[in-house]
């Protein structure tokens, strides 16, 4: 007996409520944008400059005492939060101290870091500082710019690639799905104020890659079925293709999620946000390849005349007729 995530022969109609699903997606995107403008993103030091100091001690973390000890230093906005992780031992109490960027273009000065460390040591003599990272405002400004460039470049490249390999309608559908995924991810990060740093950009791009992977597999099948069933309604072809690939879509999502969840739980707190972004992205990406990419393709319609020789141009991997 095999484990099956979806019944063997599904014949579900994915478009009977396509207005509803597109509406929900649209509403969620609007919500994400609103959240972004209302709450903003909790940028890490990569993007807004400043210093983070990770502390570790056998004594319990006393956020109030840490704050009081640092208050006389006059460093402006200081945030202190305790970090929890199942992999920590019983006498491993970790906190993260974040200090806003100080004036000037440079990273924080040695003296300031020393002063902070001295202040914290006076509260808790056992304290150690496993990592100290400082980014000057000059670099952080550039990092945020190059991050935005990277995401846009990725989406543009994909737009062009899919357009070359398929048709422009496919390409628009795929890109709509990508924008959807990226927007919703930013929305979640903004809503829950999860720290957003450079690694999250990597996660965003991976989401772009993953969601695309999913979308392309469905589209590939659509392309094939469009050629096979020339008379069939576009809606039928889309439904057929999604149903045929559904088992694979679920299998891949589940194996990827299995791997990511184990990393989320066991991989330590340093990359937890990064992994969270990817888990969220896989879920949203799987949803969007069916309910956004294909739905948009359905609304846009497709050129059905595949008899022209140029229709074959992009399918050198797909000559499958027996």
């Amino acid at each position, binding site marked *: 007996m095999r484990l099956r995530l979806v019944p063997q022969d599904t014949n579900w109609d994915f478009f009977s409520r396509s207005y509803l699903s597109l509406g929900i997606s649209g509403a969620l995107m609007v919500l994400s944008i609103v959240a972004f403008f209302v709450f903003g993103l909790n940028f890490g030091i990569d993007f807004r400059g400043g210093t983070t100091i990770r502390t570790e001690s056998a004594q319990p973390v006393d956020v109030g005492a840490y704050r009081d000890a640092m208050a006389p230093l006059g460093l402006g906005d200081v945030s202190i939060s305790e970090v929890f992780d199942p992999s920590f031992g019983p006498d491993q109490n970790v906190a993260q101290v974040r200090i806003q960027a100080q004036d000037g273009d440079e990273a924080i000065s040695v003296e300031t870091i020393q002063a902070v460390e001295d202040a914290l040591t006076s509260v808790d003599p056992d304290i150690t500082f496993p*990592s100290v990272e400082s980014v000057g405002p000059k670099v952080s400004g550039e990092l945020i710019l190059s991050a935005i*460039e990277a995401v846009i*470049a990725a989406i543009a490249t994909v737009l062009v690639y899919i357009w070359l390999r398929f048709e422009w309608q496919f390409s628009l559908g795929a890109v709509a799905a990508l924008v959807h995924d990226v927007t919703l991810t930013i929305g979640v990060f903004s809503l829950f104020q999860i720290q957003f740093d450079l690694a999250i950009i990597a996660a965003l791009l*991976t989401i772009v890659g993953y969601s695309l*992977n999913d979308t392309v597999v469905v589209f590939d099948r659509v392309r094939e079925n469009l050629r096979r069933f020339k008379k069939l309604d576009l809606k039928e072809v889309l439904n057929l293709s999604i149903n045929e690939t559904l088992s694979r879509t679920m299998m891949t999502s589940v194996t990827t999620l299995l*791997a990511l969840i184990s990393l989320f739980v066991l*991989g330590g707190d340093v990359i937890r946000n990064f992994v969270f972004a*990817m888990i969220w992205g896989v879920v949203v990406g799987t949803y969007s390849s069916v309910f956004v990419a294909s739905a948009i393709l359905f609304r846009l319609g497709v050129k059905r005349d595949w008899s022209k020789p140029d229709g074959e141009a992009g399918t050198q991997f797909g000559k*499958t007729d027996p």
Partner: protein
Amino acid sequence: MLNISIFRRVVIILVVVAGLVYAMPNLFYPRVESHNDAARAIELAGGEATPEQEADLSAWPGWLPSGLVNLGLDLRGGAHLLAEVQVEDVYKQRMDSIWQEVFPVLRDARDIVGTIRRVPTEDSSLRIRIGDTTNIDDAAQLVRALATPVVTITGTGSTNFTVEVDGDEIVVALSDAEKLATDDRTMQQSVEIIRRRVDEVGTREPTIQRQGEDRILIQVPGLGSADELKALIGTTAQLTFQPVVGRTTDAEQVAGPNTVIYPAVDEEGVFYILEDVPVVTGEDLVDAQPSFDTNGRPAVNFRFNPHGARLFGDYTAENVGSPFAIVLDEEVISAPRINEHIPGGSGIITGNFNVEESTNLAVLLRAGALPAEMTFLEERTIGPELGADSIAAGEIASLVAFAGVLIFMALSYGWFGIMANVALILNVGMLFGLLSAIGATLTLPGIAGIVLTIGMAVDANVLVFERIREEIKAKRGPARSIDLGYEKALSAIIDANITTFLTAGILFIMGSGPVKGFAVTLGLGLITSVFTAIFVTRLMVVFWFERRRPKTLEV
């Protein structure tokens, strides 16, 4: 048909075996690492080996590959700095040397230009005020004649400086081509000097890279903190010998034209007024060694090259009896009186040093001065324990992820799933082989990339298996089903992976540090997983099919 030629089979197997052989050293990480360290140390020592190094060397056979996946700073711990070099600093020095060329020429033409005076400027230009402006164009022409052409790829006809007339002043400025060339030289020198200084500390595989126009990325694994690294490379160690004009205790005193005021290192509250153009600089040093002066106090002996020796000799001959300042990074270390002409081009720097300080000073002087100051835009210190924790957590998570995927695949696809699992294990092995072979750096997000690859690597197999299922449903025979399954899934596999690969490529180009590490593992992981899915699993399926010849398929 399920025909794979013998030749192809052999090639596929060889590729897999090669991948695994290259990955193998990572299983014996500490042993191979000490082997590599010993090999490098012996090579540096010119073939001489201590018994300890011999033992380390023989712990790993030399004929086996010894490439390891480098661990990034976030996994090994260490210090990371991003420095910006103030390349404009050098323009001023260039102007000083141009002034030294221009001055004698104008002095010889004093009868047409009148008095000559250098006007202090805020920017990096040289302004010369002359007494008689009637012939100022001729004077400018004289200066212009000193300019030399700059050799660049495109810069035809550009000279190293431009000369213009502004009222009663002749303005000399570096040309853009010369600025570019100067910047380039400054950066190369800075990188080289930082490398020399870091190498003196002798840590394993430091990264010292130029980034963009004027930045240098420095990563030193295993160093205690970014502060230590900064202390080591942040010192410019700019040594100059400057004529002393006077002494003062007032730091606010306005320096006269062409002079500067620097504090004395060992006398609190004492400042020296010095001529701003040095007689000789540390650039002309060929050697510096820690030593002791005649009173047995730590000092540094130095020796000039012939050029420096001549300048130094001439100056001391002309100025016997006057004081003379030895300046390090804009602080006067000592200001001895010149007792006699010093012709040999060597001397001694005495000051209030202890032995460690004199040793460090000698190291810094030997390595050379940084041509320009640096500011630090980014600094990170990762403790080794945090890195070790991250590795441990990453290892456990990877193993659990691995186990989860293996079980899930076996449950879903039975025998085919098990074959896919073997391929998955080979896949991760080959990924490590590839990473080791190209000397890639593994970072924490890189581990996440591997875990993601584990999850996604099965995708290609899933695509094929699902296709085979469909073909079986369409009542095709077992051989035909397998064949068609592979054939029809191919376009989806290729398209899906190329698009992901494109985003990994963009991450690699635009990302930095750990993100780049993630892009590398993700991209290489895609290559190995496509390879295993369309060649390795297929070969396994074919081997199995040829032995069993099943009448029906269950996928």
